[in-house]
């Protein structure tokens, strides 16, 4: 049984008919084609499907679209504006923080939320903010370095 709902994603409104039990993760990927949101467990364990709901990191695999019709949802596709990358996307690329890249969209969104709340985050704050996002490639080292570099870049340009 499908329900007609409206989702606000990356500044665009989508009226779509969804199966009520399908998760936001499934709807983003399969109904809206936003495949940048990844899945690694479908059980809220890995953080690969992290999106921002009204600016706060949330696991799309644990959210039903019906619940978030009033919210603004940001996926990795919405992190850039007209081809201009968020500074954290730039530093992730420049500093090798994305190896296989599969956890990267989720970590970027958690990191973007962190940088908004803590423009100069400490390592401890990074560890806390990213604790729900597993990465198997990097050992997290280059991720921290990229967050620090992005913080500096944003401070220089007066925030993003």
């Amino acid at each position, binding site marked *: 049984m499908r329900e007609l709902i409206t989702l606000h994603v990356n500044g665009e409104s989508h009226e779509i008919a969804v*199966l009520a039990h399908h998760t936001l993760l499934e709807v983003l*990927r*399969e109904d809206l*084609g*936003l*495949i*940048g*949101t*990844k*899945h*690694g*467990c*479908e*059980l809220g*364990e*890995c953080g*690969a499907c992290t999106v921002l709901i009204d600016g706060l990191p949330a696991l799309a695999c644990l959210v039903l679209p019906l619940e978030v019709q009033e919210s603004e949802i940001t*996926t*990795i*596709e919405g*992190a*850039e504006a007209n081809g201009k*990358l968020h500074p954290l*996307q*730039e530093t*992730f*690329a*420049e*500093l*090798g923080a*994305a*190896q*296989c*890249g*599969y*956890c*990267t*969209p989720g970590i*970027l969104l958690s990191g973007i939320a962190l940088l908004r709340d803590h423009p100069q985050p400490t390592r401890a704050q*990074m*560890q*806390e903010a*990213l*604790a*729900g*996002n*597993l*990465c*198997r*490639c*990097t*050992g*997290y*080292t*280059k991720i921290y370095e990229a967050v620090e570099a992005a913080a500096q870049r944003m401070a220089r340009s007066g925030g993003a």
Partner: protein
Amino acid sequence: MSKQQTLIAPDVPVSHATYRVIGTPRPKVDAYARVTGRALYADDIMLPRMVYGRLLRSPHAHARILSIDTSRALALPGVLAVITGEDLPRKYGILPSSQDEYALAMEKVRYVGDPVAAVAALDPDILDEALKLVHVEYEVLPALMSIDEALAHPENKINDEARTGNIHKAVSYEFGEVEAGFAAADYVREDWFYYEGNNHAPMEEHACVASWEPHPADPVGGKLTLWSSTQTPHYVHREVSKVLNLPRSHVRVIAPNVGGGFGGKSDPFSHEICACELSRRIARPVKITCTREEVFLNHRGRHPVKMWVKTGVKQDGTLTAMHFRSFLDGGAYGSYGIATTYYTGALQTVTYTLPAYKFEGMRLFTNKPPCGPKRGHGTTQPRYAVEAHLDKIAHDLGIDPVELRRRNLIEPYTRTVNGLRVTSCALGECLDAVVERSGWYDFHDGKSAMNGNAAPGKTGNAAMKRGMGIAASSYICGAGKPIYWNDLPHSAVQIRLDRGGGVTVYCGATDIGQGSTSVLAYIVAEELGIEPEHIHLETADTTLTPVDLGSYSSRVTFMAGNAAIAAARRLREQLFEVAAEHLRVPVERLQAGGGVVYDESDPGTALPFVQAIELAEARFGALVSSGSYAPPEDIHGDYKGAGVGPSPAYSYSTCVAQVTVDVETGEVVVEKLWMAHDVGQSINPLLVAGQVEGGAYMGYGEAVMEQQVFRKGLHKIPSLLDYKLPTTLDTPEIETILIEIPDREGPFGGKEAGQGPLNPAIPAIANAVYDAIGVRIDEVPITPDKVLRALKATQATAGAATRPQIAPTQAPSPWPTRLIRWQPEAIDGGLKAATHQNGDGHIQNEGTTFSAMAKGGQS
């Protein structure tokens, strides 16, 4: 007594050359696709009319299949096809010597999760219902869940591949004079160790899309394309073709971006074959995406290994002989297990000089998900055992553990007692680096003054003990032999230049996140004098790209890199030939860089790259080149089994770990890892450091938390919540030190970095735990319960029990395979020639073949 043999050192001294691209930190060429969500992984592929598939898996660890009734599932609206073992009756397996898998079980199931049936349906919701409607009648058999159970019950044969009982493979070797070596020792020690199995847990679950395109005029009936998250499209190509009984010409396997592998995506898998067969039946694309639980069931992860090691040393710590036994818990099928078995023994000789060495290995079938290769493939467990064992010996003899290692370092350009050719080796430099950076001697000298090394810890009391440990290791830069033996190249690269200046590089190499695609771009860019971002790359496609065997055995940079150099140099020669005439400059003076071909003594005399291409195309026709690489032949001994272990080069790594142990809770906190890695020459130091950090991280996880847990045949923790792996809150600080002493045969001197640096992290941590609490935990992972048990046992015996006992495995007597004795003198005549042999690169261009990299000095 036979000795380690010294090879002739390279006749051309290596030096740090100046490169434009090589050695410079820079983004991966596909980094921006990965940070914007544009990179396509297998599950991101959505094709018109695509439907979904899923596997029905066995709920029993060991059972006979009495009947399967699929009729009710087939009758469910939306179900398009149901297949069972009868539909795919051809055996396969990654190794030609272990063809023991069916895509769907035929007569028996051998582990909980063994695939039994596959369904295709219009949407995933229907699949759930359909799987419940497949009725399978089983006769449950007793399950054998450990090495010792498998040995104790030969009558309960799990897999017919086993020669006797449940022994899949047994090997036995003696190199040099082992008894004489022990007799010459001043001190001999024996230890048992156990290394629990663990999973790769890549973030991306296995996924694939298969698409059969019927073609009635083709006698074969059509062509098949499979996109799969695989590290080895080449081997998947072979096995899918075989099981589906299709000529390889009609099967195309593509690996899109792969979301991590670590060895777990190196086998051909049931879900890949079933997706192909379902697609062929219904002539629609079929996608199968595994759940996280299925990733744990696909497994092919680290083998649990029980090990016994006996080593003789002189009073000064010099090794005289080693006898090593390994018992591998292989799970239900062969996978790479025969190779793994050899790997538990082959590389003991490559880190330290061993004048005599005996190795006996045995792999057992059990009713668990099949084990296979995980980062460090088969060498990780023995490296842990040997490094912990040597630490005990150092302690027993009162020798500094660093010094004991230093006294036994293998020399560069030697041949080991088991016949392996070692070329460049910076192990000593690695050891110096971690000792210095970690402040090893300050730490240990200050320790006694700190009265038992008490340090305030998280509990705020003296329960926290701090310690520091060290370990060293070595690893192959690519397997010296392909999985199915042949004389073909292991890796090939083709390059096409178009008159618009476009450069397209084609290579089968599969980027699983390590950056192999970028490495190809850097190398071709260096050779052609352009920027890496200029280049288009087509990779990991068995139809479009020339072969690369796959992303396993740390082989890609070395082998595909050498192939890329060979291919690019042929094109550069053509460009230089026309540029020399056009610029009226001797060809020897030409250089390529900055997008031009120029005179090095007058850089203003230059020809733009695109113009050079036009001139060259006018002269030679369309510009296409190919280069290929196969390892040198004489890098191993001439005994049966000598094919596992040889490599064109070895990387070396050392690690110092600093830990605190809470003696009240048993928790081990790793505070910092210092990791030095001998990479020869970084192609891109940013990516190399990333590999070293990732390896250190993964080793840390294996050392203290990661493990497979089974109860009554069931995997008890097949989820990322219950299977503990390190989060940001756990992972220690990692300091990476890259040692760059170029290897003569590596591309620009480069060696591997993807696997080697995992190995020393585990024993370094284990040795640090001992340094902290004075008690050995001879078992990995070192979890709090084991620490507390060991401490309690020590207290109960007033210190007499220095470690928890690993119950020795009763080996069959006699060892169930013939002992192969081999003396390195047997190939003495061939040794010196081999040292002079460069990479065996060939270029093929317009029908001509010639050696691209001179095999100088072969006499």
